[in-house]
């Protein structure tokens, strides 16, 4: 473990720096994030803060007039589906990558109220930040973790997904990073819990001629479970895109399952294909480059998207939408 005395100094030749900030309770949150922000402002580095309430207001109040020089993003809305966070940082990077002073961000993807399913996707997101930005321009992203509110395994995982840890005065390299369970391959191999068989509303295999029937099935079931008509229509488009991917890239056929889980509607599409791009669905589609638009749109229209893919068992994509 290497220690540096001044936690907020960064070597000029460093690349992307991705640190977890461990803090206990609101007072430490404010003190530590405000110090990070003020340090950025002193060095004339643009800084974007994406945290949830009440921490956004707490930090804004503490910064006073300095807050005028800080950009804020509401992480509650942006990060509801954590797969939407990397594109927001990507935009931030594109805006400032030419800046000579460097630039920073504070991003809080994980909070105590996250569902167990969303939490896993958030941890995958934390790891994918390294994949997305390690080879890009240098900048510094700090991810606050509340050690009082979050369970111990979540803090342990933060050590696995962040190359650096700030836990007070000192900065140190995480001795757990990179974690062998969190390579791009193995994230796609993480198990998904089986649905309760009693809750499964439809299960059918499909090929190209079945797309119309499949869409009707999803629309009917979604409305029967109480999803408003416009959101049911969105979900029909999403499932159509997943099924289209199965037919085009997954061997010509696939299987749909649809069920209710607590207050969410879940649609799952399985096929024999392999997804080998860990950032799929997280890159803004471009007119001149086909591919990935279906999963991008799924991430924008759904509350959570879970992608699992291995050579042995093929690809599973689950999309979740809130029923209430």
């Amino acid at each position: 473990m290497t220690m540096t005395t001044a936690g907020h100094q960064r070597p000029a030749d460093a690349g992307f720096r991705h640190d977890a900030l461990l803090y206990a309770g609101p007072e430490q949150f404010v003190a530590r994030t405000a110090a990070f922000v003020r340090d950025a402002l002193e060095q004339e580095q643009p800084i974007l803060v994406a945290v949830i309430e009440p921490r956004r207001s707490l930090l804004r109040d503490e910064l006073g007039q300095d807050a005028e020089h800080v950009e804020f993003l509401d992480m509650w809305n942006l990060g509801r589906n954590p797969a939407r966070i990397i594109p927001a940082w990507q935009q931030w990077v594109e805006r400032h990558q030419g800046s000579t002073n460097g630039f920073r961000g504070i991003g809080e993807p994980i909070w105590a109220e996250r569902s167990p399913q969303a939490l896993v996707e958030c941890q995958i997101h934390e790891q994918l930040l390294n994949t997305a930005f390690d080879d890009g321009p240098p900048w510094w992203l700090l991810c606050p973790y509340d050690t009082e509110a979050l369970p111990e395994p979540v803090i342990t995982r933060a050590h696995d997904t962040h190359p650096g840890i700030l836990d007070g005065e000192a900065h140190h390299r995480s001795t757990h990073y990179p974690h062998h369970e969190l390579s791009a391959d193995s994230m796609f191999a993480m198990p998904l819990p089986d649905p309760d068989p009693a809750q499964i509303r439809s299960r059918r295999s499909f090929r190209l001629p079945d797309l119309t029937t499949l869409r009707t099935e999803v629309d009917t079931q979604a409305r029967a479970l109480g999803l408003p008509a416009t959101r049911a229509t969105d979900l029909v488009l999403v499932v159509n895109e997943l099924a289209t991917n199965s037919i085009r890239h997954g061997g010509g056929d696939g299987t749909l399952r649809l069920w209710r889980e607590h207050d969410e509607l879940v649609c799952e599409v399985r096929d024999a294909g392999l997804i080998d791009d860990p950032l799929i669905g997280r890159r803004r589609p471009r007119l001149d480059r086909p591919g990935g638009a279906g999963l991008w749109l799924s991430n924008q229209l759904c509350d959570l998207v879970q992608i699992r893919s291995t050579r042995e068992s093929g690809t599973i994509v689950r999309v979740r939408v809130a029923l209430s």
Partner: protein
Amino acid sequence: MCVHPHRLGVAPEDLGFRIWNSGEGRWHVSGQVDLRAAQAFPAMVRSAAEGSDRMCLDCSELDFIDVAGIRALAQVAHGTGTLMRLRGTGQTLRRSWQLLGFDSAVTNVEFCP
């Protein structure tokens, strides 16, 4: 069997959609644009757009359009420069257009009721 240059060997009833012209620059699309239409739909929209500076595509009888179809509309408008007016589109198409970033990437498409 290839019976029509736009249909690329698929029998017309299997395409799932129909496009027709009802006068100067006025076009209509009905049915479902999905993977079955992956080649025919972009080709037909392109040939409709290529002939004129402006076109109106009435989508009020369109039951479904997938992301590839939405993308084809954007690409044709972008590629040909034809002013494309989309009439009677559903909310999902309009929302998807925006979420895919086409409203900033393609400036010559207008949505109207």
